[in-house]
């Protein structure tokens, strides 16, 4: 069954996506491979690829492996069928350098991603309120002009300052949101995130596709508890009209800026489809109270495995 032609054809489609370098999250040697595979031991690793996707891949050879080791993809002949057909698969090859940042699990970061107007800021504010003992919001560095209705979550810097911080590696996640009216950069500083970890809390960030990928690359995908937030609606068109409705209703933006945002939102929705692997949970923002309750449970179950009254049991 594993060798039927349509199955192989489908698998090959995925192949090009997995031709990336990556980092080993864990590894093992299977000494008794299942039926349909060569009987010699197989070394398999769970690898986090550069784009944040995780894959199970073969790592042939005898070189010692370690968690945190960088690997590169190679095509290898792995099997010759009884009919003499050669099968090539992606294998990963360990390279010397160990990515130090990956060596230790730094802690969780809660990332909230969603199209413009879906209510990320509102959800984030409510959420950080209800679980304020455990999480804290990371200030957003931005070059945009101060606006009426902006909360305390922004730190305003000039574009020159922003780019300098970025070049110095202090801002580890940055994105430029296209807009007709102004050039707007948004980003996060490593020092802000790490300061929250030091307080024993979990940092929460509002992201979009670029920021999410930057954070996953810097701290490792495993560190990101990635929550997607979508507007209600069964298809993209309904979702977009929901967003348009919300953006107009909140009256913070000019019609021009709303059009910009909607265009970006369309890209964001596409991102949800294409990069499902970057999301651990996807929530729909329909009933705000229910949503906050659900997110709270979900997040607490990760960052706080034992409730205080349960710790005293044994």
């Amino acid at each position: 069954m594993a060798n039927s032609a349509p199955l192989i054809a489908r698998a090959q489609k995925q192949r090009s996506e997995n031709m990336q370098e990556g980092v080993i999250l864990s590894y093992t040697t299977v000494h008794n491979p299942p039926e349909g595979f060569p009987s010699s031991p197989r070394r398999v690793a769970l690898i986090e690829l550069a784009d944040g996707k995780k894959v199970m891949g073969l790592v042939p050879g005898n070189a010692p492996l370690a968690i945190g080791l960088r690997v590169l993809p190679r095509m290898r002949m792995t099997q010759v069928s009884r009919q003499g057909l050669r099968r090539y698969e992606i294998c990963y090859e360990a390279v010397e350098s160990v990515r130090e940042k990956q060596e230790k699990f730094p802690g969780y970061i809660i990332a909230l991603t969603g199209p413009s107007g879906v209510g990320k800021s509102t959800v984030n504010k409510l959420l950080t309120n209800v679980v304020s003992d455990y999480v804290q919001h990371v200030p957003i560095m931005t070059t945009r002009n101060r606006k009426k209705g902006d909360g305390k979550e922004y730190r305003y810097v000039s574009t020159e300052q922003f780019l300098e911080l970025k070049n110095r590696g202090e801002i580890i996640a940055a994105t430029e949101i296209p807009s007709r009216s102004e050039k707007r950069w948004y980003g996060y500083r490593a020092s802000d995130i790490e300061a929250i970890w030091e307080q024993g809390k979990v940092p929460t960030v509002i992201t979009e596709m670029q920021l999410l990928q930057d954070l996953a690359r810097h701290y490792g995908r495993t560190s990101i508890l990635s929550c997607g937030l979508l507007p209600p609606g069964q298809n993209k068109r309904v979702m977009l009209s929901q967003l348009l409705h919300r953006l107009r209703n909140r009256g913070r933006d000019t019609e021009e800026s709303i059009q910009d945002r909607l265009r970006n939102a369309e890209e964001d929705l596409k991102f949800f489809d294409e990069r499902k692997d970057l999301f651990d949970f996807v929530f729909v923002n329909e009933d705000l109270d229910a949503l906050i309750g659900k997110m709270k449970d979900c997040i607490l179950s990760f960052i706080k495995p034992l409730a205080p009254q349960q710790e005293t049991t044994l």
Partner: protein
Amino acid sequence: MEQTISLVGCGQTPFGEHWDKSLRDLIDEAITAAIDASPCTALDIDMVIVANMIGERVSGQAHLGAMAASMLPHHPPALRVEAACASGSIAIHTACSLLESGRAQNVLVVGAEKMTDASNEEIAAALMGAADSELDAPSGITFPGLFGLVAQRYMHEYGLTREDLSCVSEAHHRNAVQNPFAQFRKEVPAQQISASPLIADPLRLLDCSPISDGAAACILSNTHASSIRIAASQVSTDTVSLAQRPSLTSFNATREAIAKALKEAGVTRSDLSAVELHDCFSIAAIISLEDMGFAQPGTGVQLYKRETGLRINGSGGLKACGHPVAATGIKQIIDVSKQLSASKARWGLAHNFGGTGATCCIHVLEHANG
């Protein structure tokens, strides 16, 4: 629970290598034992639920609902359920739902697996059906391999040692000595576990539950009474592939299921005196204890090193009792009920999961005289 669901009869075959018995024979033996042990007659059974995972692949036999029902004189309605290694507990969960809905009054639940008819390679491939066929299986990994990845990462994150890990199987083997239905009724010292052959590093042979034949059956009723009732039955799920999880060292489905189950039963962890947990591999036992909140992350193994008020896998667990996949979840319920009856304790819990924790089903049992 919407109503009182009593466990009125239990029966099982010994788990092990039954070369002289087919899948059908195993089911028959367990069903007969359960009916004999209950206040019901066969004719009282108004629904049969069969749990089985790899019957088609190993025995060429699907359609097990009707097959089991045909062993009763009146051929009651029947169905089969599957959730990999959690099939057994899912069958109990299904039975509870049917009883609660009023669709049935006396449900016979039987879980059976015939595994030793096939080669180890065939069984390894069949069990991979519990993992993701597109994301996991193409790498040629096996279930020991998947839990090898989990164990490797756990050791990296928490500094668990080989000696620590061996405590788990050692304790389970010690418990199984007293269990007449267990596949391996002998003590195995930790040193021997640490020196057993590597299967998927860091996991060694004696970290892994064995390949077994066996069946277990029980009757759940809302008309007949007994001293044991099902106080909670809860299921949670997660991604089938490990590669899509935020963490390798903690299973979210267990965390969700335990929270729901404790709430449904109205008990706290400290009320529980017996737990049968899903130790398909030694590392799984440690992680399950942490996910169920009996220990902080990274400290689960400590519960095997010191005495606590909690009896863990008193039966010997999957490791020493054997793990005929779909029979295990039902066998756990039987063992918890036996332990509660013997100890006169009130609350016990059975934790059963499928795959690498993609389905988790937890039952809380209450003993009326406890």
